[in-house]
């Protein structure tokens, strides 16, 4: 099994790489951070008997992606699975953010994800099943004031993935969207979760379990995975409560958290 993982040098991407490695899958890892890629490649090869190929790439740059695709074609690498993990967020009120940083959220979370998904779908192994995972977020279930751009970009992924899944059903391609709450991926993520107090802890899922369950479910042909019972309940509420009410509650809540001065 050949798996491509974007954003593989840290957080969830690294957890996926680890999980796939333990299953004996061969990996093609990409990230903007080449040093990080070299480290995880070393770690994986020392632990598991697999082939790991890395290529640093700025997915928001079409030329950089073309270079990577050339590299892939030159080595005749073809795939069974794509894990779209690369993504970013700049939290806070819309007007208070840097203009270009806001645009970057959409450039990476959406435009780059489309670019890479299209390219890798064209590089499937003929006649075999193919699996795509989009890493969306629990935030995709609600309008989220103070995380407006991020939540909308994740909503884009959820809706896009649902449609793509239908389009590719007859081509033996399964598409799964992962919508996790908090995960302890970095120190920053940990302080963010701590800042949210009880709800932060309650909506947080263990990274390694999410990685394992996501691959299991994607291979089993599932469509959406929301880790954690409480998160599933919240996702359900997001569907039945009027969206303007949800926005008001979320705004009140995030304002309170950032009011504690713990989230910038």
């Amino acid at each position: 099994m050949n798996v491509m993982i974007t954003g593989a040098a840290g957080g969830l991407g690294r957890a996926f790489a680890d999980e796939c490695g333990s299953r004996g899958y061969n990996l093609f890892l990409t990230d903007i951070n080449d040093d990080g890629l070299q480290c995880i490649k070393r770690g994986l090869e020392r632990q598991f008997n697999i082939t790991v190929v890395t290529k640093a790439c700025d997915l928001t740059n079409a030329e950089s992606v073309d270079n990577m695709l050339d590299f892939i074609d030159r080595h005749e690498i073809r795939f069974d699975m794509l894990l779209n993990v690369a993504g970013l967020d700049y939290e806070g009120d819309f007007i208070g953010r840097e203009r270009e940083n806001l645009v970057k959220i959409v450039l990476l979370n959406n435009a780059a994800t489309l670019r890479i998904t299209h390219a890798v779908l064209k590089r499937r192994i003929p006649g075999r099943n193919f699996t795509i995972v989009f890493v969306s977020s629990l935030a995709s279930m609600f309008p989220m004031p103070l995380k407006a751009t991020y939540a909308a970009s994740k909503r884009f992924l959820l809706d896009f993935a649902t449609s793509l899944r239908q389009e590719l059903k007859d081509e033996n391609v399964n598409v799964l969207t992962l919508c996790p709450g908090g995960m302890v991926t970095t120190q920053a993520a940990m302080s963010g979760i701590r800042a949210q107090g009880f709800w932060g802890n309650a909506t947080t899922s263990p990274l390694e379990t999410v990685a394992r369950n996501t691959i299991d479910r994607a291979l089993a042909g599932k469509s959406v995975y929301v880790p954690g019972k409480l998160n599933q309940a919240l996702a359900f509420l997001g569907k039945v409560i009027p969206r303007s009410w949800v926005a008001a509650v979320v705004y009140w809540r995030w304002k309170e958290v950032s009011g504690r001065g713990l989230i910038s």
Partner: protein
Amino acid sequence: MKTVVITGASSGIGLEISRLLARKGFNVLGVGRSEANCRRAEEMILSGNANAKFTCYVADLMQQREVVKVADEILSYLDGNCNGELHALINNAGCVRSWYMTTEEGYEQQFALNHLAGFLLTYKLLPALKKARGRVIMTGSQSHKGIRIHWNDVMLRRRYNPLTAYKQSKLCNILFAKGLNDRYASAGIRAYVVDPGLVNTDIGNKETGALVNFIWSLRKRHGVSPEIPAKTYAFLCEQEPTPEGLYYYLCKEKSYSRQVTAENANRLFGLSERLCGIHYGEVQSL
């Protein structure tokens, strides 16, 4: 002047060991993770004692490339100033985690810092230790008892329990010390593990979740001052003739887990060598 290297030297037990050994006239090279804490430790130790020799290097030892980098810095210092001799290496840096978190290599953090960092650093500093017939001391814990190494999933990825990961990393410390003695006792190197007991430090309050943080805040109040265990480390650095035990508490030998066997030590050596990309020498038959 004898030189010692102490990791985790900028706070807690490591800071007290550094202070004590500097007062006793050792040339102390510390390693700490945060630049600010390292500078503060230097100020604390040097301001109290004009003759003290203490330098604190900055490195995040969880990441292997930082271990290699700081080891090279220390080696070139030793070559330039200490005739390439290192009298003692104290692998004290350690951490507690609430969740499964990984290093750059994708290794579980408690295993990576509490065990692998010392394993790799000792390997890198081995030439200097050999030259001085030096000693290697690990900070262990009584909690290493009643547990086995999970050989099939040493990073506990399948079912992560933070406390199990911590205990296992502390069992690794003793297995590592035993393995070192089996390989290098004939070359004059001795390895020990110190049980510091329950000590009032901030280990459980650094980068942990609310629950571990809270429990540790209550628990550490019953701990002794870091000055108490520091004496055991100084004892093992200074005592002549070389002490022959493996596991020490309050300057006395103590019994350790029955899991500490040559077979387990060799198995851990093989695994750790692979995970660090290095190769120690073979076991010497004495």
